């Protein structure tokens, strides 16, 4: 079990590094799926099998497929990959990377300085999660339902195209 955790963690870190260094969007998204699958393995090892399934279905399934559809609508060509290569010069990424690494080292120091006992090793059942979702956290469930509704309406409103109406004498745009 331990070996599974560390292997999956290594796969997740390496594939996430590959995601943030690719020039081509589709290649980056494929590595992103690998990273999500590795994190799903980690959820399984940590005793959250239902969350592992949700990770695959929602993140690796729905969200990545949505991004791929948008990329297909944008008709990206080889020139965009070249643009990406120009935008990612070492002078640009060195500073933020160093600052973030400083933050990461602080975080690692805090984690190693704290003495935390090890994981108890008993899985949390999906039933307990459901009972607590629809028990004490029912308000959160309703709020996330409203958030999803607002997301649908907002995405429809923002994604609507202005239709062009061609007239014989004048050209105007209509909503």
């Amino acid at each position: 079990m331990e070996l599974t955790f560390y292997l999956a963690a290594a796969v997740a870190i390496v594939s996430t590094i590959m995601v943030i260094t690719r020039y081509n969007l589709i290649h980056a998204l494929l590595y992103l799926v690998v990273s999500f699958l590795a994190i799903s393995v980690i959820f399984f090892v940590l005793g959250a099998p239902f969350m592992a399934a949700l990770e695959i279905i929602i993140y690796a399934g729905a969200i990545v497929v949505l991004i791929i559809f948008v990329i297909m609508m944008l008709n990206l060509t080889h020139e965009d990959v070249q643009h990406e290569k120009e935008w990612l010069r070492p002078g640009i990424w060195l500073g933020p990377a160093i600052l973030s690494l400083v933050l990461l080292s602080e975080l690692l120091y805090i984690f190693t300085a704290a003495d935390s006992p090890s994981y108890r090793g008993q899985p949390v059942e999906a039933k307990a999660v459901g009972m607590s979702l629809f028990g004490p956290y029912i308000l959160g469930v309703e709020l996330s339902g409203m958030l999803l509704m607002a997301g649908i309406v907002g995405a429809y409103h923002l994604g609507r195209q202005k239709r062009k109406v061609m007239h014989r004498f004048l050209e105007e745009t209509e909503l």
Partner: protein
Amino acid sequence: MNPIPMEHGLVLAGILFMLGLISVLIRRNIIFMLVSVEIMLNAAGLAFIVAGARWAQPEGQVMFIFIITMAAAEVSVGLALILQLYHQLKTLDSDAANQMHG
């Protein structure tokens, strides 16, 4: 099942979060920035799951469900904004996003 120290899971979550942060800072392509935000949200969810597993309580997984819901709503609105940006300006450069005119 052999126990895994809690800080190893938290260290993994921290590393993934920092990778997402680096990417959102260095990228100018707006779709890459959206993907980096997804990486950061996922790392935060991993930290919640690790904490939930440590105390064997369902609260961590409940928070992960809320995070995943928020990520889905956020990515749909973000992608709609990206489509509008691309149709108006014909570019994915995030520096051009201040010229969207409402």
